[in-house]
């Protein structure tokens, strides 16, 4: 399943990535599964994407880690928001 990943805030800067396309082998993957896979990329990924340091949205809606992903989803990964 192909999804589009967007990064904002601290992880975008520290991982030096703003967007990418990801191909997830498991068709019933959750947001949590996606993050587990991304953390395998190395220590900095593991640190930046650790639980409690990030919040996520699927298709522009804040989503819990248990949310199921679907083909073509836009998944955003970011540090806790701090606008206003």
């Amino acid at each position, binding site marked *: 399943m192909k999804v589009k990943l967007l990064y904002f805030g601290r992880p975008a800067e520290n991982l030096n990535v703003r967007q990418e396309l990801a191909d997830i082998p498991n068709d019933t993957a959750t947001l949590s599964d996606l993050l587990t896979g991304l953390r395998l990329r190395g220590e900095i990924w593991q640190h930046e994407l650790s639980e409690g340091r990030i919040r996520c*949205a699927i298709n522009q809606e804040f989503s819990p880690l248990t949310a199921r992903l679907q083909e073509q989803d836009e998944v955003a990964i970011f540090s806790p*928001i701090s*606008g*206003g």
Partner: protein
Amino acid sequence: MSISIQQYDFDVSTELNALRAANKNVGALVCFVGLVRDFNGDDPIENLTLEHYPSMSESALADILDQAHTRWNLIASRVIHRIGTLFPSEQIVFVATAAAHRSEAFAAAEFIMDYLKTDAPFWKKEQTRHGASWLETKTTDTERAARWKIKNTGEST
């Protein structure tokens, strides 16, 4: 209900005049302006850089205004959020509510700001002479937003 996300500054009088021009039954305008402070922790702030999630930020703000209009009898509302690099004392955000009576305008403006802090995808990076750091949602902001879930409008107005 009107939302702008923009780099350039805004003029509060112009914005409030537009809100009250909409309807002569507006008796109360409440506005909030958030500014860049010169100090947050120990070091002087050189500047703040604000980024947002463009395809989500406007709809997230619209959703917050919708909720405010559902809870209170508002005649009009307006949010402006700036992005880009801003310096101490510059305006960051503007929230204004127009209602017949002040209780509704006050409650709604505070509600909108509380939810903006927890539900609108904006991020601030603070630059001091020791480097830059990304700010994160404050616990107090999360708590303030949660208050509205257990509070009926009667008590807050």
